[in-house]
């Protein structure tokens, strides 16, 4: 049971302590219950790689990896991420070495304006973690949660297709992401 229950009758504006591992670092935070994970990242932590597009789970621009799984940060309450391991686009590279998915996006010119790109890349890494997409058609279907208003879809699909083996190898080596 959390410290805050009806019996305890707290003030509505009681902040809840939140412990999570963010891009490999343990963080102790305080959040209001109605703060979304997206707003926590952008407004409190200044991690603005994760984008707010529709704010309703329809566009995928806010996609992050929660315990290795891709989720929409806009429809996730930060307070519900207690103890989670969270990876945002800022946490994919290892030092100066880009994640294979990031490299593939650059190689294939898989963006134009770039606004959807952090969500596309996090979603693609989540897709690789799932291990369900083998064909180009399956990649296309399993990337349907990420919209690109510029229409860079075919390059995005090609980038993901190329990066999948490297991602699999990375996962096999215990990289986790």
């Amino acid at each position, binding site marked *: 049971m959390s410290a805050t229950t009806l019996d305890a009758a707290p003030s509505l504006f009681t902040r809840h302590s939140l412990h999570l591992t963010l891009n490999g670092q343990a963080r102790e935070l305080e959040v209001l219950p109605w703060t979304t994970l997206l707003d926590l990242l952008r407004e409190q932590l200044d991690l603005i790689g994760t984008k707010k597009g529709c704010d309703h789970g329809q566009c995928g621009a806010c996609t992050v990896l929660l315990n290795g799984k*891709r989720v929409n940060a806009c429809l996730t309450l930060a307070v*519900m991420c207690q103890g989670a391991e969270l990876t945002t686009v800022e946490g994919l590279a290892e030092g100066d070495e880009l994640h294979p998915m990031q490299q593939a996006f650059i190689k294939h010119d898989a963006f134009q304006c770039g606004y959807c790109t952090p969500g596309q890349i996090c979603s693609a890494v*989540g897709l690789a973690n799932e291990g369900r997409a083998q064909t180009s058609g399956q990649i296309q279907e399993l990337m349907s949660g990420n919209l690109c208003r510029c229409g860079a879809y075919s390059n995005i699909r090609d980038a993901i297709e190329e990066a999948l083996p490297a991602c699999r190898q990375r996962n096999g080596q215990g990289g986790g992401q």
Partner: protein
Amino acid sequence: MNPFQYSKPDSVQSAIHLVGPASRFIAGGTNLLDLMKENLTRPEHLIDITGLPLREVTATAKGGLMIGALVSNADLAWHPLIEQRYPLLSQAILAGASPQLRNMASTGGNLLQRTRCYYFYDANVPCNKREPGSGCPARNGLNRIHAILGASEQCVATHPSDMCVALAALEAVVHVHGRDGARTIEFADFHRLPGDSAERDNHLAHDELITAIELPAIGFAEHSHYLKIRDRASYAFALVSVAAALEMTGPVIREARLVLGGVAHKPWRDKTVEGWLVGKVASREAFSTAADALLKDAQPLEHNAFKVKLAHRAIVRALSDAALGGQA
């Protein structure tokens, strides 16, 4: 989003005891938080049930499976036993939402998602489902996506779930816990038609929590198919969907399940039609006759008459694919 209190109980009993008049349970949050952002619902207290031990998929003594209410849509669709024994359910789940949403959304929450009627989602217009007695602009408005079966003067909304169409076909059983203890609800009796109380989507009481969905032993793995027709190839709600499941001996149908999605306030099933199919040889003619019977009482609105023909063709195709082995 409005301010609210937040609690995270660690047992079903304590979760139920936290229920108050303006509280809501939250699991995946994919629909509830969206509704809260639109100011369509303003709970004063969210009870986070993600700490409850409801994440297992286990075998039942009757040869079926018990699915914990917190199993995510993605985990359920890709569970080996679901893929092998209940492919209809896997197909239906994977036809819905996006990969991100399926990772978040829970099995129990899928049953409780609200309609995506445009008027329900617009707090600036009347809606009997949102504000009982205020009226229904959809009945004479833009009603292309709305119901053709079982609607009422008060409400022409459809139930948005794909998973539920398959669960209805599989005759799943909903396990719930409330202040008065536990009970089970047959899937066909879980959701309701709008009648004169459109605000009620289902028969779950406010203090009741879905704890599990039980699947019977028979999964129609040999002959089932989920067909979803929508405006784009992926990530859209169904205009019409069909869950078709058959048991066959050679070409002869021994048992049939046929449920429509996207056409009514609940998954639409007619046991008389299913019974009629039993003993028939699988054929386009037989499936067409079944489709005629299932749709004979359809009452299309100004903009959705196309759904009647679409549903007819979808039924014939889904049953044909199911008869052939479901992978077509």
